[in-house]
């Protein structure tokens, strides 16, 4: 069975929701990447929108755009991944508990703090009774959702799946993690990859995909989604890469472009360099987090970027390619890692 990406919806720190342009102008931000929020009125009533946390609105908007793009009214399944869930609502409820000594609390932020709120709100707005799962496994949350989505299609349980990766950044999250010196501070996001030093710049986003076993004006074909846990051993990574290539009947030289999760952090970036140099020496490569920042489900942005590149058959100037590709880019591998967890997502043009 072949699996196609038939629709996209992406609320991100770039102007990515409108499909008519493709990263023609780049938005820069100070210190961290913030999503460019669309006009939510189109999808959510103003009264409902006032109550919703940012991540829910982002997710609902991206999901709506995606379904419209794929011409799907009601998906057979909704599968989302989120590393941190509804942070803003969680923090709001936690702070009210602490500040008011557990008195005078209202339920709204608690209700919306549940990790499956985005998937649930999409189902509610679509009146969709179908399968609805949310994965919350750190930097492999989106990949977990992706693996499940492929399984649903292969089982014949769904003919199309709405897959999404969603995470929001909040001021508290930023400030708390600053204490761990995780961030490069006092610079523009344009400089995220400019200096090799400790730390990165955080981001956020909501990217949705309509997957199907039948191509409908598709962006890309999904060849593989592979994950590897808790290892720094190159041999294990090598085994994974070989398995993926073999299963896809490809050689490493067939990979035209490798999108790397390079994020400016000195130590983490070494792993990307080693990955590229060891396994895909001949392929072109480029980072993607210079556009979206580092967050748990940033690979969803990577998949959006790869899908657009494969369909539009053009590479925008903002993609810092290692070198100019000699031929048309037909196969793209996305590689990401975080604290010993690794993921590979392989897409091809249709």
């Amino acid at each position: 069975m072949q699996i196609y990406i038939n629709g996209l919806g992406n609320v991100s720190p770039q102007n990515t929701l409108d499909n008519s342009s493709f990263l023609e102008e780049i938005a820069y931000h100070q210190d961290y990447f913030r999503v460019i929020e669309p006009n939510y009125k189109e999808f959510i009533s103003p009264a409902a929108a006032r109550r919703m946390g940012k991540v829910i609105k982002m997710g609902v908007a991206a999901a709506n755009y995606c379904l419209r793009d794929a011409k799907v009214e009601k998906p057979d399944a909704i599968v989302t991944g989120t590393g941190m869930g509804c942070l803003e609502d969680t923090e709001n409820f936690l702070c009210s508990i602490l500040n008011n000594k557990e008195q005078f609390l209202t339920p709204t932020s608690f209700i919306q703090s549940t990790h499956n709120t985005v998937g649930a709100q999409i189902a509610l707005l679509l009146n969709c009774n179908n399968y609805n799962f949310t994965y919350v496994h750190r930097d492999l949350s989106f990949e977990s959702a992706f693996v499940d989505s492929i399984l649903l299609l292969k089982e014949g349980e769904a003919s199309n799946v709405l897959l999404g990766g969603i995470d929001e950044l909040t001021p508290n999250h930023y400030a708390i993690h600053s204490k761990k010196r995780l961030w490069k501070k006092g610079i523009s996001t344009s400089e995220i990859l400019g200096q090799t030093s400790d730390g990165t710049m955080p981001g956020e986003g909501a990217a949705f995909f309509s997957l199907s076993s039948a191509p409908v004006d598709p962006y890309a074909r999904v060849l593989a989604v592979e994950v590897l846990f808790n290892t720094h051993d190159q041999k294990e990574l090598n085994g994974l890469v070989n398995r993926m290539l073999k299963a896809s009947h490809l050689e490493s030289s067939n990979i035209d472009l490798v999108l790397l999760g390079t994020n400016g952090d000195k130590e983490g970036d070494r792993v990307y360099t080693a990955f590229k140099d060891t396994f895909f020496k001949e392929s072109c490569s480029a980072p993607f987090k210079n556009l979206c920042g580092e967050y748990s489900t940033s690979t969803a942005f990577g998949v959006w970027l790869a899908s657009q590149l494969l369909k539009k058959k053009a590479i925008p100037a903002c993609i810092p390619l290692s070198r100019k590709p000699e031929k048309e880019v037909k196969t793209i591998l996305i590689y990401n890692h975080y604290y010993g967890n690794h993921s590979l997502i392989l897409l091809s043009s249709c």
Partner: protein
Amino acid sequence: MVITGLGVISSIGNNVQENFNALTSLKPGIGHIQNLDTVHKNIIPVSEVKLTDEELVQMAGFDKNRAVTRTTLLGVIAAREAYLSAGLDKVNKLRTGFISATSVGGMGKTEVLYPRYLDPNDTGDFMRFLETHDCGESTERIAETLGIKDFMTTISTACSSSANSIMLATRMIKAGMLDRAIAGGVDSLTVFTINGFNTLMILDREHCRPFDDSRQGLNLGEGAGYIVIESEEAAKAGNRPILAEVGGYANTNDAYHQTASSPDGQGAFLAMKKALEVAGLKAEDIDYINVHGTGTPNNDLSEGTAMTRLFGANVPKFSSTKAYTGHTLGACGGIEAVYSTLAIMNKTIFPNLNFKVKMKELDLTPETSLLSGVDIKNVLSNSFGFGGNNSALVFKKI
């Protein structure tokens, strides 16, 4: 896909045997809050695991200086029991997955440390706990303890979370992606959840009374429950007993309200109906339903309505075990999968404690006394959560 191991820790016992003993001697675990600092201490009853964090560290065999959450400790204890009871340590390593679930992960530690996290000048050893907050943390620590690396993930769909991890594990084995998996979930009680449910006004000040007309709400609980699921081929290795089979599963969405269940129980109805279809069973084949039965007016009416729609006048014997364990949120599907398997193995139906009068709206009476010697061939286990997330599992006798 067969079940070869069980593991559980809850307010009524620290392992499977203790849980079974409490279930059959009708001893609930509900009482006053002991392990949390909250203004609700002597007002809101809960169903705590009767061990302090220090005692859990010791039981889990962790270094006491390690940054570890109660959630991880509960999970390690139950998942390890499941792993060892299936004899997985004695057979060749096949492709093994660990699929876990939790609703609030490491919130129990975060809510205590949050003011210190927010203070820019307060840095110190406590900052190690920052990385233990998210839902994936307990999964990774448990998998690491059991030496599982082939696959792991974490599901969070509120109160149906661990039913869904069992569903995913079964599907992955069926599809040949794994040979076996440990699946279930864990949640520890937190001030965050107690206050959350309290604002929704669905916490009973007395022991909860599922399906009773006088029910006022649920009691929150904590714990962990895991089962070992294997392909039949994998389970044959090493002469190990097969306890039951995961026969069916389904997940649907009620699509009615973020927290409330629909009056017609549509999501619950569809989940039960589909789980039966997957199991290849007719409604009359079900001998016992371990209902979600939280004790909230809304859940029990909606679930009861869905049961009546599906089974008509012949609703099978049913009970909620939440009057024993409280509602363990992300863990309840796992814990109740263990109880459902125990029901099949021991030909026993655990009673629905605290039930006196059936609700006015429906002609439904749960089992109120312990039933032994019942030949239970098929059990339906329901788990419903916020966000309209509804799941049903079918366990079959081998």
